[in-house]
């Protein structure tokens, strides 16, 4: 199972980076979203994989590590704020420059 998750993190990272390196703003935003998934899963993996032991006192005899979970929870919400900010930036840039190239130039 660990290998599977490691592979998924790898796939998400690769897809994210390829898309971030593209020239159009929407692809970059999509890439950032993928990178966020990868990073969140990676951080979550710092607590190792545990099945059926949620960190709720009394729910099980042993618990998954709650700390990475707390960190990732806020990371997901902040990640949403970042995605929103970047996509608005992309819209603004398209409205003002007339195209959606990340360098503000190129073919409209």
């Amino acid at each position, binding site marked *: *199972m*660990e*290998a*599977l*998750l490691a592979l*998924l*993190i*790898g*796939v*998400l*990272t*690769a*897809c994210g*980076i*390829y*898309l971030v*390196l*593209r*020239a159009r*703003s929407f*692809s970059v935003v*999509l890439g950032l*979203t993928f990178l966020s998934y990868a990073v969140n899963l*990676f951080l979550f*993996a710092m607590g*190792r994989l545990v*099945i059926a032991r*949620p*960190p*709720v*006192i009394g729910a099980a005899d042993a*618990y*998954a*590590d*709650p*700390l990475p*979970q*707390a960190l990732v*929870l*806020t990371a*997901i*919400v902040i*990640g*949403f*704020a*970042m*995605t*929103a*900010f970047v*996509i*608005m*930036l*992309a*819209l603004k840039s*398209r*409205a003002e420059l007339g*195209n*959606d190239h990340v*360098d503000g130039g190129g*073919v409209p």
Partner: protein
Amino acid sequence: MSILLAILVPFIGAPFVAYVSRRSRAASAWTAAGVALLSLGILLPDLAAPFAGETTLQRLVWMPALGLDLVFRLDGLGLLFALMILGIGLLVILYAHYYLSQQDSLGRLYAYLLLFMGSMLGVVLSENLIQLLIFWELTSLSSFLLIGYWRTRHAARSGARMALAITGAGGLALLGGFILLGEITGSYELSVVLASGDIIRAHPLYLPALILILLGAFTKSAQFPFHFWLPNAMAAPTPVSAYLHSATMVKAGVFLLARLFPALSGTEAWTWLVGGTGIATLLVGAVFALFKHDLKGLLAYSTISHLGLITALFGIGTPLAAVAGVFHIINHAIFKAGLFMAAGIIDHETGTRDMRRINGLRHQLPHTALLATVAAAAMAGVPLFNGFLSKEMFFAEAMDASTRLNFGWLLPTAVTIAGIFAVAYSLRFIHDVFFNDAAPTDMPKTPHEPPRWMKVPVEILVVLCLLVGILPALTVEPILAAAAGAVLQAPLPEHNLAIWHGFSPALIMSLIALVGGVLLYSVRKPLFAFHDHIESKLNARAMFERVLALLYQLARAVTARLDTGSLQRQAWLFVAAALCLGTAGMWSSAAPLAGPRTLLPVDGVSLIAALALAAAAIGATILHRQRITALILAGAVGLVVSLIFVKFSAPDLALTQLSVEVVTVVLLLLALYFLPQQGPSEPGRSRHLRDASLAVTAGAGAAALAWAVLTRPYDSISGWFLANSLPGGGGKNVVNVILVDFRGFDTFGEITVLALAALGIFAMLEGLRLPAPLSDAAGRHWDSDMHPLIMATFARLLLPLAVLVSIFILLRGHNLPGGGFIAGLITAVALIMQYLANGAVWTHARLPAHTHPLIAAGLAIALATGLASWAFGHSFLASAFGHFALPLAGEIELASAMAFDLGVYLVVVGATLLILINLGLAHNASHAPLKHGGEC
């Protein structure tokens, strides 16, 4: 905390003085003087202790866990400097009132002067070295303002910049030196550092620490070869020069030598570095001073020379030499401040400072001539004036040290030569200006004696020169003993402040200097010609400017190379650089990739989900130009990610991921409406190949790293959280307790970021006119049936249910999966659904137009919860909880953290809605007939 207060008073007074000066110049002078007097008055009760050899320490505990306290120290040395800073500061304030013309802002000068005064007081009264350094840097900054006071003049600006560059660089070195000193002794407090001289000197880091500290001291005190900033700082108004270059700024460097004398001195390295630099500076300054035709230039180089003398005394390193060093600090401050003020009077009255144009001034300014002559005689070291005493001590120490050195005779020779030049330039200052009647004059103004009160400061200083010079034991002895005792941190050596010591070698050196100086001055004409010839080739300022220009050029070239203004280029360079670092880290590690942890078996459902995720992610990447398809695939990825959280015991994360996914997809769909639905193909096969290989390598690296972590056992601090969640935080859901209690301050920061992002987006969308397309990518017009009836009806029915669920999630969050973040997102989704199903216009009429108040209320509640625990004497955001019985609902538990969670909930709802609604409204506006737009 009287010392802290005395330091703060000038800082507080500075803006006040500047404000008062708008009304009246006299009032601002009085206020500035009042501030300095107040500071002196606050120190007054503490002044007696240092004379008895006691050190007053005052401590303000700040961060005890880190050993960071504000600590102040008043001992003899600090007392001497504080008195010089405040006393001469008062005289300068009085003098400046008459010196500055009506056009110049007196308030600004006084404000800068007070800032500088406070910074200097901080330097000399600090016990903690880091704290001392902060004030040290403040003196650099405030002196920059003072030197550049006439900001319209090029010379002032470049002089100020040069002083800041040199002393600022020295400050950086000093920081390094202090940190090393702190590492060696284990403390940044002077009491400890001064008592561990033996440990410091024996430590292998002694030499680097010494060199770094000396760099700081030497740049500040304008020691050769860093001396050249001081003559260029003469572009400052003369009162500033009188203050900075007699008693304060340049004395900070020698103050540091004196302060750290017990900790650092007494080694060969100290003697050679400090003594050698001092002697070199003494000679260079003395020789150049004679050849300056500018009055202030002469004084600047003579200051450099005298600072060299003081440095050399500390370098010699005997207790008696240190006493002489402290004594010369006092004497130099007195006569040099007087001389600068006299030079200012001459400049003020004649309109020029060029000694070739001013001659025979004693006829017009007899009184000033007398004052200047006394001060210059002190500078030359003529008997009966204060400079003579310390200079003779210096000569005696040089003779004494020469017996202990190889080529020892060089030392008295160099010192005597410097003495000869000192006499010659002092003679020039008097003769060339006030006498020399035969030479022609060319003064822009007809000079008169200056206003009465402008001469008072000079008179006070000149009287002090005489008093100290004639009656040293009655006047200066007590404070000298107090200061020198603080420098040595040991009983004072036998010293005798008398004018007559019999026919000692030192007296003979003094006589040689006097006679030689007169002779040298009499043959000055051919020497001047020679100097003028070579001066053009030896211009330190031009060299400095060239080095600076070169540095700027280099910086520009490097920046231009790296930053071409292309995000795409920056992005791949960044990824490539990160890959290189990561690969290097992986290669250099000898450990095996996989660890010994027992792994979980793979089950079929997980495998299928993983395959689905991989397929969706890769599909979205390949099809990224079909943007809607790619977005739907990305949504699928997000769903599988939340399933992963479900599988691996993270219900809170799963709920959060799920609701964020919904919001994100809706947001991106809305945004996509304004963007081309189909991306153009990108040219360059090699670029795709490069990016693909970068991406695959990075993916492999991330996978390897994750694998390495996942297969290793580990120790976590989570045990503490799990154990304390219920007894300490009153909640069973540990993740939520961490968020709202243990790490509540982090969460508070995070919701603030969320609020800022939302407001930023709001600001960006304000007034933005987005070109909306009339049809989709395939050329089909948008469907006019915007709000299907069934969906609209169900959405309205669902709203109260969804809100109920979200409140339930919020309330149970402390004990079961849920909480403010998740509940906020669910509420936001429910409300957004109304917009989707019923249209923005319908919904907008029924919901508040702006959600800003919601965000503000959320932040305020979160903050108030945190502050409330302060009011109960707990730390910020500490949680309190209790069990209460409610009718019908039974016993429930309430924790103050739930109020905090309510704040989180409100911020999340407000921010999410603010973002989506505003984009949705822009969307709605775009349905209006378009003036321009159309799709490319």
